[in-house]
């Protein structure tokens, strides 16, 4: 007690010292900071979460949801029949964002191809998973919005980019995805999915990482601005009205032929039936005349 008193007395001797005010201010700030940190909501800490924490969170999620097929360290699992889940070393954050963000991963069931479905993880969880997978080896990162949008270009430049994107689309994409982006078949039950209503970021990532059957169009092969042009073209076709009327699925002549038969011939034969079933209507009762043909 005396010791405390003595030291307090020694401290109090400095209470009017030139540095005292500064020191108290500093102590106060530290205290409030600590208390705030202890009681503030969890999300507020996220923003400041370090990469290591994110990776750690991603790893935990990975062990629960992905490791069964992709291995505990993302090294891939080989089944007796060949690959079970491929190695994720070097696929990059973009691949995770595409596969998990479109609901393709985690896969519902093994099959020829992972199907897009409602996504299972929240955006933060996908970020964490992406950070973890990205930490396994260098790979393409999640693109920034400036990479896949035409923002910042003049109207004329945007229009030119869309035209160019259309030509690039016809050259590189339609062989599998169809001229209208409505998708097409691939051998052995695989298929190129429809591109209608797909988010710009996901289209960009798909080109960048080449998911499933798709070839990789790396940024060296197809420059980011070309990718952005293709995306802009696709979005512009979604915005343009169907000039010709109902598009019947945008599948080409097969559905057109079906409509020609079902709607066209179907209704015309129906009309023929209708005409033939209506006999002559006249005031006089006319019996069918028998024409003895000369």
């Amino acid at each position, binding site marked *: 007690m005396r010791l405390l008193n003595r030291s307090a007395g020694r401290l109090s001797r400095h209470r009017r010292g030139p540095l005292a005010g500064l020191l108290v201010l500093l102590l106060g700030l530290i205290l409030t900071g600590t208390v705030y940190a202890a009681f503030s909501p969890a999300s507020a800490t996220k923003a400041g979460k370090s990469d290591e924490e994110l990776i750690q969170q991603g790893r935990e999620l990975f062990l629960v949801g992905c490791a069964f097929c992709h291995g505990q360290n993302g090294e891939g699992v080989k089944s007796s029949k060949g690959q079970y889940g491929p190695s994720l070393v070097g696929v990059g954050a973009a691949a995770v964002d595409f596969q998990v963000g479109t609901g393709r991963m985690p896969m519902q069931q093994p099959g020829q191809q992972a199907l897009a479905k409602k996504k299972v993880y929240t955006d933060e969880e996908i970020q964490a998973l992406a950070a973890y997978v990205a930490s396994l080896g260098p790979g393409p990162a999640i693109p920034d919005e400036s990479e896949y949008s035409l923002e910042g270009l003049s109207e004329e430049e945007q*229009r*030119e980019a*869309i*035209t160019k994107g*259309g*030509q690039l689309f*016809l*050259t590189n994409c*339609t*062989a*599998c*995805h169809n*001229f*209208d982006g409505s*998708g*097409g*078949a*691939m*051998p*052995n*039950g695989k*298929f*190129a999915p429809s591109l209608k209503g797909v988010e710009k970021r996901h289209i960009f990532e798909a080109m960048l990482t080449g998911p499933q059957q798709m070839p990789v169009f790396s940024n060296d092969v197809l420059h980011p601005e070309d990718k952005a042009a293709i995306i802009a*073209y696709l979005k512009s*076709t979604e915005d343009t009205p169907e*000039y*010709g*009327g*109902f*598009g*019947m*699925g*945008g*599948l*080409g*002549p*097969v*559905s*057109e*032929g079906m*409509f*020609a*038969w079902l*709607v*066209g*011939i179907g209704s*015309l*034969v129906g*009309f*023929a*039936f209708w*005409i*033939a079933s209506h*006999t*002559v209507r006249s005031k006089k009762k006319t019996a069918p*005349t*028998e*024409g*003895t*043909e000369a």
Partner: protein
Amino acid sequence: MSSENLTSSVADTNAGEPAAAKKGNPAGKVANWADERLGLATLAKKNLRKVFPDHWSFMLGEIALWSFVVLLLTGVFLSLWFKPSMAEVEYMGSYDQLRGVPMSEAYASTLDISFDVRGGLLMRQMHHWSAMLFIAAMLVHMMRVFLTGAFRKPRELNWVIGGLLILLGILEGFAGYSLPDDLLSGTGLRIADGLVKATPVLGTYMSFFMFGGEFPGDDIIPRLYIVHVLLIPGLLLALIGAHMLLLVFHKHTQWPGPGRTEKNVVGYPMLPVYAAKAGGFFFIVFGVTALMGGLLSINPVWKYGPYDPSKVTAGSQPDWYMGIAEGLLRIMPGIETHLWGHTLSWNVFIPGQLMPIVLLMIVLSWPFLEAWVTGDKREHHLLQRPRNAPTRTAFLAAMMSIYGLLWAAGGNDILAVIFHLNLNHITYFMRVAVFVVPVLVFILTRRWCISLQRSDEARLLHGYETGIIMRSPEGGYTERHLPVSEASAYTLTARQRDQVYDAGADADANGVSRDGSRIARIRARLSRGMFENNVQKPTAAEIEDAHHHADEVHELEHAMEGHSADGHQFDGRHPVDGEELRNH
């Protein structure tokens, strides 16, 4: 001289005033004016009253005819703006996504028709839809003619003309499909190029001749244009004219029935009834085509982009009428032979050249084949019900199943995407199915027809089912059958009995084989196969016998009249007005 004197062409009297209508009908005046110069009245008198029989299936050919008229009308409109040139231009029209892209003039003018010519897109779409309907209607019409035996003597040549019309229609459609020079047309032409090149030895020469050099060259669009707007339409018009002249000359066939014979036609006259019906039908066909052209997008060329041999799109299919050729190509295994540095592409030659020719030959030769087997040299103006020619009906059903399967095989990628199927599995399935399914369909349809013949026979011999259930004194239940009306009995029996051809003995009494006995045996075999199992109509004696039997039963029951069980008064043989159930 008064002007009235001039109205009579020849003066037959020197009297003052010739007889003239009090008030001249202006239409009559015009008609008279024309008749005096053209002499059409004699021709018209006969033909305006020409009688046509009334049945919905007789109007199927009309759909094709009116579609052709729509094609001519819309085609003329399109030809005013279309530029059949493969010269390269830079597109500067209204469609944003292609502005500034280099393309052929043909494609650019198609885009202009679609976006910058008022009503152009509607006309383009109507033209395309009516082309699809034209060929579809011709096929449906052909099926009707085939199923009812309307191709028999004297109409075999008209059948052949019809077959040629379908062939020309398909070629015309393909030429039109290739004209816009978009990615899809170019891909179609590439396949046509492949088909031509698959001709052994001559293939490459023919291809270079066709395209004026290596594919695609810059000659093919102008050449196809002349074929599309001049050559084939001219042939089509001529053949349609011949087809209809023969129709008038032969008179229309009719369904058998009371009062209808091989020597008359029962129906309504051309004017006013058929002129109204057929004219009205034209407007309906035009209206349906216009609705489809206005509401349903067909061949959106702007989405395909200009043709470039290095590009292709998923869902590249021909229009439906080429679907079977596409299907044959898609399911054919890749067989090739290499001989002295030459490749014989059986995988393209067989499905692309051989099979279509074989198919066409079968179609064109059927009337002659059938006439040879039956040996029937008589004229036939009364139609047959499909069930009364079971083998023929089954043959058509089998052909339809092949057609449908090949058509589906031609769209295998679309099926795979829509129904989540494996593309390879569809192809393997089709390779087997095109051989198995038609056989099954043939057997099934044939037996089905024969069963229907049996049911007709039962109606004739035992009467129709009245729906009246009678309880016998023993407690058994029977359904009352009553004889069909005379008219329907006549209609059911208005057909000829099939005669199975018998080749006779192979060798005569001295053991010398007869000339042509092998061919006769083939004919006998076919004849047995076609007619042996058919149910022939009962003879008059058989019907008499059956009715007699029914009357006997009735006689037996008659004894119970008055004291039969309650309800027997409703057995369908007596008028039941005022009848009541006895109350006891």
